[in-house]
């Protein structure tokens, strides 16, 4: 078999001649010398297809995935069970190859599943309108902040320190060129410090961003937060939620949240090395014209049959240009479909079961872990699927010991929260068996 070669030396020579330069290196002259590799890549000149396949397979075996590890890691990405129907439907070629609709109305199938996804997100969050999705949980927070600034004509954003640190980072990046004044609200015993929040919310505040369950897994007192925020006439409350938790928790809509956002990875999307994931955003009717991104609506065609259209497009940049609500003109196509299939496959009852079993598992793990006193709870608040403990041993040492036993340990909190230097955040989903949890505890007990 002849090996695949992109460009022969002759091809390269001809192309260089055509553009009038004498070396490929010249094309990289804009890249500073000190950041260049300055040597050839360490690759063998040529391998047969069979050799390369064997080589790559061996290489891939070095990767550890949740298929060969027991996962107790969370902190924003979760190992929930994915029903196999999700894979079978999303991998159908009609769906798999369809990107966000540009020739929209000709793609009725795509519009229909996006409309169904939007409807499911509305039902889940208790809001009126959801868009066709955003990139991920972090950018969804940033887009919600844009919305709040746009609606209130203010630029101060308050964000709780219990919001995922990566999301706060994304918010800062997005907010930089919008001249946002981003103020972080302190945390006390793992939840947003309400006294501090009360002092910080003023008539300059566009929105307050909280997360519930928050980064530590704890359920925030949204009712109290909502009262503080809406004491200011215009200020909006943005809440990032774990969609699985909504199987048992009150909807953010019923608690008076103005903009609900979140990471949808838990809804039938595999961990896939950190992305692509799925951001969702939902609002009430009053704010729908400020929503970013694509929005699918239901209508009737010329024969009176149900049909779908992209709607309220005047918000978007192909019409509104620089005045658009956002520069996003895409959505998370196949992940949106996965979330829709997941939610439909489980149904209201199924999602509730997942949420209940997740809670039971995490609380069992928590009780067992703190039993001997070697690991102490970091906080004393109601939590959903994650909890934090601390000990006198460094998290890296603990996680190395766990990895030796094929267990993927928790998230070391010290990097983002120096005050919790030895703190570890464990996530326990419905997938974990009692035996797996018991093994985690016994390995942990053996370390100290």
């Amino acid at each position: 078999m002849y090996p695949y070669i992109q460009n022969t030396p002759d091809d390269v020579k001809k192309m260089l001649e055509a553009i009038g330069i004498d070396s490929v290196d010249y094309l990289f002259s804009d890249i500073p010398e000190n950041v260049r590799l300055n040597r050839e890549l360490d690759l063998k000149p040529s391998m047969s297809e069979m050799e390369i396949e064997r080589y790559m397979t061996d290489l891939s075996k070095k990767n550890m995935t949740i298929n060969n590890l027991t996962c107790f890691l969370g902190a924003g990405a979760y190992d929930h069970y994915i029903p196999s129907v999700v894979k079978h439907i999303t991998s159908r070629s009609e769906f798999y190859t369809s990107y966000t609709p540009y020739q929209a109305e000709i793609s009725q199938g795509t519009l229909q599943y996006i409309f169904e996804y939007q409807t499911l997100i509305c039902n889940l969050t208790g809001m009126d309108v959801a868009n066709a999705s955003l990139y991920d949980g972090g950018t969804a927070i940033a887009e919600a902040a844009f919305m709040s600034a746009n609606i209130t004509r203010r630029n101060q954003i308050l964000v709780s320190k219990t919001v995922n640190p990566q999301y706060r980072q994304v918010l800062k990046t997005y907010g930089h060129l919008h001249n946002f004044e981003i103020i972080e609200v302190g945390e006390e015993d793992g939840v947003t410090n309400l006294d501090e929040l009360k002092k910080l919310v003023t008539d300059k505040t566009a929105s307050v961003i909280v997360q519930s369950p928050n980064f530590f897994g704890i359920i925030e007192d949204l009712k109290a937060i909502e009262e503080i925020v809406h004491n200011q006439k215009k200020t909006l409350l943005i809440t990032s939620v774990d969609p699985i938790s909504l199987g048992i928790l009150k909807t953010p809509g019923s608690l008076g949240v103005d903009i609900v956002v979140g990471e949808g990875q838990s809804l039938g999307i595999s961990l896939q090395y950190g992305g692509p994931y799925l951001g969702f955003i939902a609002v009430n009717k009053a704010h729908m014209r400020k929503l970013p991104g694509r929005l699918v609506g239901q209508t009737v065609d010329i024969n009176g049959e149900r049909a779908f259209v992209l709607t309220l497009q005047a918000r978007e940049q192909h019409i509104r240009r620089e005045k658009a609500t956002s520069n996003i003109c895409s959505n998370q196509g196949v992940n949106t479909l996965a979330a829709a299939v997941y939610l439909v496959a489980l149904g209201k009852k199924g999602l509730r079961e997942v949420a209940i079993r997740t809670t039971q598992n995490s609380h069992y793990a928590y009780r067992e872990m703190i039993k001997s006193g070697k690991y102490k709870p970091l906080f004393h608040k109601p939590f959903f699927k994650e909890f934090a403990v601390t000990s006198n041993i460094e998290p890296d040492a603990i996680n190395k010991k766990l990895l030796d036993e094929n267990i993927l340990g928790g998230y070391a909190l010290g990097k983002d929260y120096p005050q919790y230097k030895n703190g570890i955040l464990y996530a326990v989903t419905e997938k974990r068996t009692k035996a797996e949890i018991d093994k985690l505890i016994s390995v942990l007990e053996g370390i100290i």
Partner: protein
Amino acid sequence: MKILKDLYYTKDHEWLRVEGDEAYIGLTDYAQDSLGDIVYVELPEVDDEFNKEDAFSAVESVKAASDVYMPVDGRIVEVNESLLDEPNLLNEDPYKNWIVKIEIADKSQLEELMTSDEYEQYLEEV
């Protein structure tokens, strides 16, 4: 295209009817005709303050959206809420159906606006 006497006009096709220290602001007949069927009007809130040329409202038709700009500096004293339910009032009678009523901050700015004759001439050029 209908143009009323006694109103001030802007290059962005807003009109302004002065009553003492206050003024009503709306869209001209030319503007509503160019936009086509108006389906949504976004209104500011009472007491919002704007500078001349700030966008204080947005008007959306089936395939276009356009901002409405302040002809002069001022503070919103009243908004025409009937436009929220019936945005097409702007198509039906753009001069009767004002968008906002403002308190003018500096009446000398009125001199920078066009008279009806000047606006008529301006329309011939655009």
